[in-house]
């Protein structure tokens, strides 16, 4: 049941020009940044010799690229998730799901899975760029892998938040805006803590991209993985409850 819903969701995404446009734009922008980073790396290359540990192309090109990719996901995901439920409510197709013998949790997970598959595809495409460096440079595949894993987990969290907010309104644009606002808040929440160290570490902990840092250094902390998974699960749980509520409110 979950896979049926996920497959339709994915199909819907690829049948709309929106998904293709988003992929093309992210890919284009990241390619530009990729080129700039490589250019910078080449001009710095000579001066790096002798530094201990000597930073390689993975640290100076791949890590910054993935950091920018994280920003790109922040911008792209709300536009993907906004339609999930709000569009179905607006058009009335949600009635098909609600009247079918399918549990709310299966509906939520199916839709979530559809978006996740799409986002994993997007992350894989982003990963191809640094991978192409492997042709001419010594690439640290471990670091690249952990970086992409971190990016995927971040994408999953962002998508879960977007999915929940799209259950709240029948207007996709409102859902997108709200998702963007919420994510941005989770993005910059650690700015408060960056002052004099007087602010509670809670803010650091809540920051979405901060948990990506270790992944980009090649470290997979279970705490960071758990953070992203809990973040996603919390929003999926809220979405399931909200779906029951839609039935109650009509």
């Amino acid at each position, binding site marked *: *049941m979950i896979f*049926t*819903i996920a497959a*339709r969701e994915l*199909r*819907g995404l690829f*049948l*709309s020009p929106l998904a293709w446009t988003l992929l093309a734009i992210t890919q284009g922008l990241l390619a530009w940044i990729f080129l700039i980073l490589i250019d910078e790396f080449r001009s710095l290359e000579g001066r790096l010799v002798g530094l201990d540990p000597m930073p390689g192309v993975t640290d100076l090109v791949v890590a910054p690229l993935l950091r920018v990719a994280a920003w790109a996901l922040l911008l792209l995901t709300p536009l993907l998730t906004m339609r999930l439920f709000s569009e179905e409510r607006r*058009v*009335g*197709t*949600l*009635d*098909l*799901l*609600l*009247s*079918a*013998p*399918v*549990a709310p949790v299966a509906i939520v997970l199916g839709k979530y899975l559809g978006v996740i598959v799409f986002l994993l595809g997007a992350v894989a495409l982003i990963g191809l760029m640094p991978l192409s460096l492997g042709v001419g440079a010594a690439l640290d595949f471990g670091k690249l892998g952990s970086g992409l894993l971190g990016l995927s987990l971040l994408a999953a969290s962002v998508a879960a938040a977007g999915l929940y907010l799209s259950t709240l309104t029948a207007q996709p644009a409102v859902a997108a805006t709200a998702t963007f606002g919420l994510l941005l808040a989770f993005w910059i929440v650690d700015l408060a803590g960056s002052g004099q160290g007087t602010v509670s570490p809670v803010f650091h902990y809540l920051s979405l991209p901060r948990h990506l840092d270790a992944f980009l250094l090649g470290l997979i902390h279970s705490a960071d993985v758990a953070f992203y998974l809990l973040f996603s699960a919390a929003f999926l749980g809220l979405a399931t409850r909200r779906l029951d509520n839609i*039935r*109650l409110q*009509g």
Partner: protein
Amino acid sequence: MLVENAALMTDGLLVRVEGLTRRYGEVRAVDAIAFTLVRGQILGFLGPNGAGKSTTMRMLAGVLAPDGGRIIIDGVDLLDEPLRARQAIGYLPEQPPLYRELTVDEQLSYSARLHGLSRVASRQAVVRIKQRCGLAEVGRRLIGNLSKGYRQRLGIAQALLHDPPVIILDEPTVGLDPIQIREIRGLIRELGQDRGVILSTHRLSEVQATCTHVQIMRDGRLVYAGALADLEQRRRSTSLRVGLQTPPAVALLRALPAVEQVEDLGQGRFRLRHAAGAAPTRAVLEQARVNGWELWELTPEHADLESIFIDLALEREVEQ
């Protein structure tokens, strides 16, 4: 309880609704209504817009949770075991739930899979239902490009796909042309033979053409429930139309027995209103012959169902 349900099942009881209530804020959209649906019945929900028909339908389909009451579908309580009960329902909402970006085939197989049909079974079901609903030629067309008539048919096809014993259709013929309406009505009558069908409409002709039973709703209450034949019984003539070559003064016609009111329609025609069941046909014939009025038309005028419906929908209180 089980025994009771089993006993009812043999009678072909498909839907039992008790004290069903739904409020929107202060407004009681549906107010403690109760009814049953038996296999072989086509039940027409009739009422003006805003009477609570769609709300009732939505609750029966499990899309909207009631504030009170019970809904038993095919022996299963919709609120206790929603998934099992919903399996027994095919539902067409007011707005057919179709994805514009899918083709007809894709939409149907998606819906079949959602209702738990296996891949093979869903493929067969899609082929069968397309035949039955006249969708065979449009299988590969995008729903977004289909006409309203085809979309409506597709919505109905979708509701029948998993072969449910209970079919709920919310205004199934809205937006169709007369030929399509006739086709859909034929389909509904056919379905009603071995299933239970509930449909809502605000047009009485719809009920007359398809339904075996009728329920009239007003302000969230049932104001009439019964077989369509019983409603037809109320059609009693209450006026006579008379055409006379040499008409007498209106006062003379007024003086005929049981005539309550005379309306001059011009060119020698009159409408004589009389008490129900006491048509002064004989008196008119007799007087016309005696006085040489030269009668050329004498037609009893029936109160049509429409006006009975309006009476019920606007004024009369619960009949049952």
